[in-house]
């Protein structure tokens, strides 16, 4: 390539990346700009990016309306916990599919693929009635609003998008050299101990990738949790129903009319609050996303 061509290309690349990057960054800038302005600034035509009336009260009000700290605690308990157990159960299952031959394997793996294809909306109602009367015969428990409704499927590899995660793990384990295990077997190690002591330490990048996806999916989920919880226990649900929560907790009345334009300040503040934990996690782990993809196994 000639130098002139190269220069032209890097200018072109810069323009393309900046303008597309702007599409991604724009809503975040807007979010920050709205969250710290007074609602009067929304109808002031001279205000675009920099608020005239800087204030922290919107953030404070949103924290109250969302009952943020309690909700955050609940979400972390539900979200991080489920993600962790889901990663473990999917890894064990993926290893079973990657390394062992057994009868019916193809059919069972077909079910994994089905799990990827079936929209959660199809099975959510039967699942609701399952958890509403969980048990056998006359003995049954009402598990609605109980965290077990999320934990039980996660423990057994049936959580949110678990089919995809089993697939990722299977691909990754299938790509590891068999010699790793053979050495352990010769030393008399059982397959399960081999998995825990030899395979898992070699698969940490895959674990981290799946864990990240898992955390993000559970954090952002509102569909599955709105099926099993009648109150707004997670940040995503709270944000989804922020309109109502605002009216009840801020204006003491469910029927008050707020100007939709002015309401944006609280909504954007709510968005900012709910993505901050994920953003912090992303900033710490973005190196893994941006540099280490080839080792993580998702490309199989």
């Amino acid at each position, binding site marked *: 390539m000639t130098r002139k061509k190269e220069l032209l290309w890097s200018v072109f690349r810069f323009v393309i990346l900046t303008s597309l990057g702007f599409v991604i960054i724009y809503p975040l800038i807007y979010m920050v700009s709205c969250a710290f302005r007074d609602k009067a600034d929304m109808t002031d035509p001279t205000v675009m*990016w920099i608020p005239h009336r800087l204030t922290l009260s919107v953030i404070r009000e949103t924290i109250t309306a969302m009952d943020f700290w309690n909700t955050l605690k609940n979400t972390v308990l539900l979200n991080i916990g489920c993600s962790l157990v889901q990663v473990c159960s999917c890894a064990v299952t993926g290893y079973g599919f990657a390394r062992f031959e057994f009868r019916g394997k193809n059919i069972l793996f077909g079910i994994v693929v089905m799990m990827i294809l079936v929209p959660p909306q199809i099975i959510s109602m039967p699942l609701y009635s399952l958890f509403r009367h969980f048990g056998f015969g006359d003995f049954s428990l009402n598990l609605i609003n109980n965290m077990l409704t999320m934990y039980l499927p996660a423990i057994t590899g049936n959580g949110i998008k678990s089919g995809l995660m089993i697939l990722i793990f299977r691909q990754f384990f299938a790509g590891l050299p068999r010699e790793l295990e053979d050495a352990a077997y010769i030393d008399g190690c059982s397959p399960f101990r081999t998995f825990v002591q030899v395979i898992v330490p070699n698969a940490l990048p895959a674990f981290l990738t799946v864990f990240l996806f898992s955390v993000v999916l559970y954090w952002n989920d509102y569909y599955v949790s709105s099926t099993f919880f009648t109150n707004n226990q997670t940040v995503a649900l709270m944000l989804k129903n922020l309109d109502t929560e605002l009216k009840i907790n801020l204006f003491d009345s469910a029927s008050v009319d707020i100007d939709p334009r002015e309401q944006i300040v609280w909504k954007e503040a709510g968005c900012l609050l709910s*993505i901050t934990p994920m953003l912090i996690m992303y900033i710490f782990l973005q190196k893994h996303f941006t540099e280490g993809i080839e080792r993580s196994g998702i490309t199989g």
Partner: protein
Amino acid sequence: MSKKITYRKRRELWGYGFISLWLVGTVVFFLIPLLQSLWWSFNDVEIDTGKSITKWVGLGNYSYAVNTDEKYLVYLKDTLIETLWKTPLILIFSLFTAVILNQKFKGRTLARAVFFLPVIIATGPVYEIISGDIDRTGNIGAGQFSTLFSTDLIGELLQFLGIYGISDDMNGMISQIADNIFGIVWSSGIQILLFLGALQNIPESVRESAILEGADGWVYFWKITFPYVTPFILANLIFTVIDTFTNPMNAVMKKIISMRSDFKFGEASAMAWIYFGIILASVSLATAIIKKSSYYDNK
């Protein structure tokens, strides 16, 4: 009792052992609910304190969904058409971006970090709010933002390039694409990630020999990059289709959920199953087409 189990048999048992937990969960939390929902779609369903009472109505619910309900078919058509034109655009855009992000330049890490950002945001309610706000608020900032990618700009560009007399259909299509840049960029995070991984798997030796043979960027893309990423186009295609189809924000899904809140469980199940049938058919069709034309590295 010392019954000798063969090595093979023992491995098989271990295999079952590894998947047993998943198998139990799948029967209880996936297969049974799935069959139940299929059963419901042929029944009139009433829920009494969480227990379901069913009455067989045959294809009644399906006929309700297709013939009686005014909105269902419209939503279905809209969602299908949207998926049909958005999916190729997302794939092209994400491959293009991945190729750029795979090059060496200053600020590459920052650029990657920005382009993967949607991965952590786009699946949640936050995305719904920010995409809605940009459409609806009509405030100055948003207005300026949308003019940046406005139809006029594209129209002027075409005029400038001397391309006149494009039919109105074509013009409409181009403007729709321009209006949807936001949605496309925001739904491409995972796809870029996957393509980038595929690009990083191209062996250095292949790159060197191509350059030695005098391949320029264009030839390199079509002769080397493209064949290497075709298997990932399939993976990305399936991912994109499923992602758009199962998104709780799409019209069909909203419709199914609203039917459910009206306690029309049978009808809702029928609608969900028709929809699922279409997903299954289109994913298998796409798989068949791409499998035929894809290149696999003989490892």
